[in-house]
């Protein structure tokens, strides 16, 4: 008992030294050189199931910093502190607190809505801007958080685009939905299920699969028996979508497949190969011919390879923040917050302009996989095909 107590007290002492002194040292440093550069945090799953998407986000921010570092002048240099939240609420809060202790002034992240929502609380309280490049859940911006921004679109807009496409272009009468039980994927599928009857589409079934499963044969056999006009696939990422597409092809299901933006990733074609051909998906419209996109693509490709679904959004998020800091002439949260609402520039993904609630608006279009590439296919705005 006694030795254990000694051990505990020693450990406590060590903890004091590790955390306590660490903090003091940082304070000293800050006193010496106030505002030495800008520190941006990223919060995304760098390990675990969604590590691929998490790394895309981190890399997107790193690419943005590389581009902007030269322009920041006396405010620079910009450094990035990447933290791992593993898509776990507890670790997300721990990582957020770590970032607060590290004195970052803005956080780009998180990926999973279930990490973004709890992590936003300490960040908002510490007056740190949070810009999510990937959490499309409506609740993220609707709970009235002052320093919350979103660069990607919203689930409710995406489902509208999907249903419109199914009705107007695919002339669908029946639909079958599958999701993999995450806030994002289920939210989207539910939303489509709700909208479909109003548009004259009969919902034949709505199935759920578990995250981490690779065998979807049982569910797909049901889909095959139901013979829907459209099969709506709402999965959390491309890695779970690829095996599903392979199995769809193997079972000989000929139905049109409509997916959503999380499925967008170059690795989809790499993994699913021919099975991905002809799959439609809703995705934020990105003009890949603009100089802004080309600059992003060149910077990103050189260092990290092909960009993923959220790389461009993460890049734009960091860009928007740095532009706002430049306009505000410092990192004061309220000033930057005001400037953030004034930014209006052509980003890599779209025209970046934040509304009062922090949303940047959605511009979903339908893309199709053709010849191993994603191509813009149909525009829900005017109901026209994109001309080649």
């Amino acid at each position, binding site marked *: 008992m006694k030795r254990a107590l*000694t051990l505990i007290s020693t450990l406590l002492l060590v903890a004091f030294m590790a955390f306590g002194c660490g903090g003091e040292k940082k304070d000293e440093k800050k006193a010496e050189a106030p505002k030495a550069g800008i520190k941006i945090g990223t919060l995304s799953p760098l390990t675990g199931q969604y590590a691929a998407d998490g790394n895309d986000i981190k890399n997107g921010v790193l690419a943005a910093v590389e581009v902007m570092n030269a322009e920041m002048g006396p405010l620079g240099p910009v450094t990035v502190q990447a933290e791992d939240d593993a898509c776990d609420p507890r670790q997300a809060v721990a990582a957020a607190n*770590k970032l607060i202790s590290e004195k970052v002034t803005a956080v780009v992240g998180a990926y999973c809505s279930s990490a973004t929502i*709890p992590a936003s609380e300490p960040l908002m309280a510490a007056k740190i801007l949070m810009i999510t490049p990937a959490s499309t859940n409506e609740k993220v911006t609707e709970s009235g958080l002052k320093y919350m921004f979103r660069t990607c679109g919203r689930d409710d807009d995406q489902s509208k685009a999907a249903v419109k496409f199914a009705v107007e272009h695919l002339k669908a009468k029946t639909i079958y939905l599958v999701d993999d039980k*995450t806030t994002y994927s289920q939210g989207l599928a539910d939303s489509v299920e709700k909208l479909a009857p109003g548009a004259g589409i009969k919902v034949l079934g709505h199935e759920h699969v578990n995250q981490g499963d690779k065998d979807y044969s049982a569910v797909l056999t049901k889909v095959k028996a139901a013979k829907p006009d459209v099969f709506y696939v709402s999965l959390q990422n491309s890695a779970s979508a690829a095996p599903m597409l392979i199995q769809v092809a193997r079972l000989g299901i000929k139905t049109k497949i409509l997916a959503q933006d999380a499925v967008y990733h170059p690795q989809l074609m790499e993994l699913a190969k021919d099975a991905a051909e002809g799959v439609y998906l809703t995705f934020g419209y990105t003009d890949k011919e603009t100089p802004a996109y080309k600059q992003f693509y060149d910077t990103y490709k050189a260092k990290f390879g092909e960009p993923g679904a959220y790389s461009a959004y993460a890049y734009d998020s960091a860009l928007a923040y740095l532009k706002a800091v430049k306009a505000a002439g410092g990192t004061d949260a309220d000033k930057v917050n005001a400037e953030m609402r004034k930014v209006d520039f052509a980003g890599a993904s779209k025209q970046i302009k934040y509304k009062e609630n922090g949303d940047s608006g959605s511009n979903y279009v339908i893309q199709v996989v053709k010849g191993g590439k994603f191509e813009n296919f149909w525009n829900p705005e005017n109901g026209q095909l994109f001309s080649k």
Partner: protein
Amino acid sequence: MTIRESKKLWLGYGLAMVWFYVLLWPLLGIKPEGLEFASSFAIWAKVAVSAGILLALYQIKRGGWLDFALRPAQALRETAASATAKVPTWIWLVLVAAGALAFPFVTERYAHDVAISVLVYICLGLGLNVVVGMAGLLDLGYIAFYGVGAYTYALLSVHYGLSFWLSLPIAGCFSAIAGCFIGYPTLRMRGDYLAIVTLGFGEIVRIVLNNWMSLTNGPNGILGIQPPGVYWWTDVGFKVIPLTGLEQFYYIILGLAVFTVVAVYRINTSRIGRAFEAVREDQTAAELMGVNTLRIKLLAYAMGAVFGGLAGAFFAARMRFISPESFTFIESAMVLAMVVLGGMGSIPGVILGSLALIALPEVFRGFELYRMLVFGGVMAIMMLVRPKGLWPAKRMGVRSEEKE
């Protein structure tokens, strides 16, 4: 160390390194573009050199060439040990208590957050300790009770606006009921059959939480859980003030942890604790001596579950958002790891174990991607170095094997 021993040691080292390279190279070196050796060799060389240095140090130490440095250190350690032995236990207790109380004043919020997590897991670890350490029932689904507690408070708070303090005992009760529910079918099973059934129950609870949309809101989780409040004097008279600061959470969970420690200590030294131990050591003999083993096992499950439920309710209040992702199998495994790593059945051991397993991944954040790799390695090594745990429990009485 004799030459033969030394030869054997280095031969083993050589063999291990060759083996390691054979395992490493295919992972890094075989590519469609062709075979390549440089990248795997670079990593291999680093590992080989550091392992070689460690081995050499070990041999030097065994050879007695470090005695000039180690002897005084040993003497110093002994003096320190005898000096600490003279200090009465209560002084250490006071020191630990003072340290724990003063912790928020000398550290910053990241440390607070880690400390809160550590304390939550201390409660969980001690609760599981009742089941695994004392009663000897391997439980791989313990996190289910944590989940039940968390969801109980979350639902009570969101739907009925019940305060945290009132919900705390209710959460404990619900978890105890869940404990009995899970415990009952497992009573006839032993050892690893028990493990898989508890694992199954843990998964069932998580899947139900994830799918019962109307009750738990599924994967979206529950938002807007009220933080605990206190009735306190303000400018406008007595009013309930919500506690939201990290320091306040720290003190609440500290209180909860102290309660758990005291309760588990009291259980351990009580008649029931002795009965747990009897069931663990020899169920048949215990039954023969008049211990109602079925009731005792159920009691162990229920008691363990209560602490899990309390910790869960706190967790919900602290995060103010819960979703089923927090209650996965890997969490159960982590809590079990804390108990085993610290030393089964030992209260200070479990505290040390929780400290180690929660603080380490945070300390290792500096390693970034290597974080979990290092963590897994350290976990295995700690077990190899101290197979009985960091601070093994003292067994009461003498057992037959020891007498021989």
